[in-house]
């Protein structure tokens, strides 16, 4: 993705900034300067809104054939998350066994690297989600390699 194209959306991507429509009293993500449901009256009436970053899984999948740039994550979990304020978004669920993710689970946003243009290109950061409730992962400490610090 080109630098200006990414730069334009920095606050939307980094801080989950979307829009609040004063006419319909609804929230929108990503940011829109126009609410399709309210029509042209909404122009000028859309306020920036920072989402709390909490929501729940609507549906999910474990991706085995990774998207370009996501090969290092595979298999990884992609989900459609419904934010507590209403809007839905497509996002990666990280820091968990992808097979444990189920509809209805609570999630919260985290700031993560999304990708890079090339080995020496710029890095893209943005929002991904983690499960809010800790899922116990059984660790086999005995088999962990000894690392000298």
């Amino acid at each position, binding site marked *: 993705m080109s630098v200006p194209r990414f730069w334009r959306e920095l606050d939307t991507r980094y801080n989950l900034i979307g829009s609040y429509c004063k006419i319909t009293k609804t929230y929108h993500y990503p940011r829109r300067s126009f609410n399709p449901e309210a029509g042209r009256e909404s122009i000028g009436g859309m306020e920036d809104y920072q989402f709390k970053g909490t929501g729940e899984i609507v549906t999910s999948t474990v991706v085995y054939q990774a*998207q370009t740039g996501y090969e290092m994550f595979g298999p*990884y979990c992609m989900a459609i998350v419904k934010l507590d304020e209403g809007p839905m978004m497509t996002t990666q669920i990280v820091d968990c066994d992808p097979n444990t993710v189920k509809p209805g689970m609570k999630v919260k946003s985290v700031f993560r690297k999304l990708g890079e243009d090339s080995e020496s290109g710029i890095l893209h950061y943005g929002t991904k989600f983690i499960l809010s409730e800790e899922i116990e992962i059984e660790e086999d400490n005995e088999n962990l390699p000894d690392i000298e610090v």
Partner: protein
Amino acid sequence: MREVSIIGIGITKFGELWDKSLRQLGLETGLAAISDAGITSKDIDALYIGNMAAGSTLQQEHVSALMADYCGLASQNVPATRVEAASASGGLAIRQAYMAIAGGFIDIAVVGGAEKMTDVSDSESSYTVSMGSDEQWESKAGATFASLHAMMTQSHMQQYGTTREEMSAVSAKNHYHASMNPMAQFPFTISSEAVSNSGLVSSPLRMLDCAPNSDGAAAVVLCATEKAKKYGKKSIRIIGSGQASDTLSLHHRKHLNQMPAIRVAAKRAFKSCGKKANDIDLIEVHDNFTISEIIALEEIGIFRRGKAAAKILEGETKLGGKIPTNTSGGLKARGHAPGATGIAQVVEVVQQLRGEAGDRQVKDAKIGMVENHGGTAATAVIHILEGE
């Protein structure tokens, strides 16, 4: 509004056509269609080209002029227009020509679709296909095109209890049909068990749930019905046409297991000819993934919502069944060359209505339907065709 007929068809074999370029494919299929129609290049008023991805796969835009030129129409300065709506490009190109003829602007148009998906690596062609969804807020977030359909499948399974066995039946049935289609990319049968045991692409979708990214081309000649009698072949009338759009992103839809654009396009097409779902003798639907065939049949109203998968498993959509679906083999087994797909679907229905479909002929086929969509059905195009 004037009536419009299809008077000629042409199609290449779909597959990995490494020895053929986009322009060769276009010429081959265009010539086949005008020969079939019994017209000459002098009769052509306009050219419409369905192509999704030449810019990203071949670094070639302006495909309309390219095709006109290499089909020998540049010296006549024939107007040529490229139509793009991801995988619905072909169906939409037909609709543009249909409207231009119905509106009285022109009499004869050639509509061609061509795509080269195998000149680039698998990962590049897969990324190109995902450009039909929202590149910024779906693809770049890590969602493959398959993963979006996988989430639709999860949602459909959760709400309606759709099973693995039912999904596999879609793919096995389409391969069975393709085994009788010499132009198919995969003209052989596969068992339902093979589909169920193929590798996971994006759970629960497996490799044999997914259509390939193919090379291929198809073309049709459209003519004002009042002038069609002049030309030799049996002409097939386009009696209904409908188009609709929806949000580009799946996550902006109210229901993740529905494709409302198909429902609306079908309603508009039915309304334009006064027909109903149970008047349809056969149908080609856009099965880029097995779930898409299931949802499309529900949206069009062939089966009630949540019931299509079970009916497919019972064999109602198989050749000889109540409503043969994807007798060409569908996108899964005939192959999926995005810009050509919507036109290849129409070619199949024309062959069926002419009674020229060989071993896969649907008995007494009078009315056929074609459903073609782009992205996760952010664009849907429906045509209803009637034989003589």
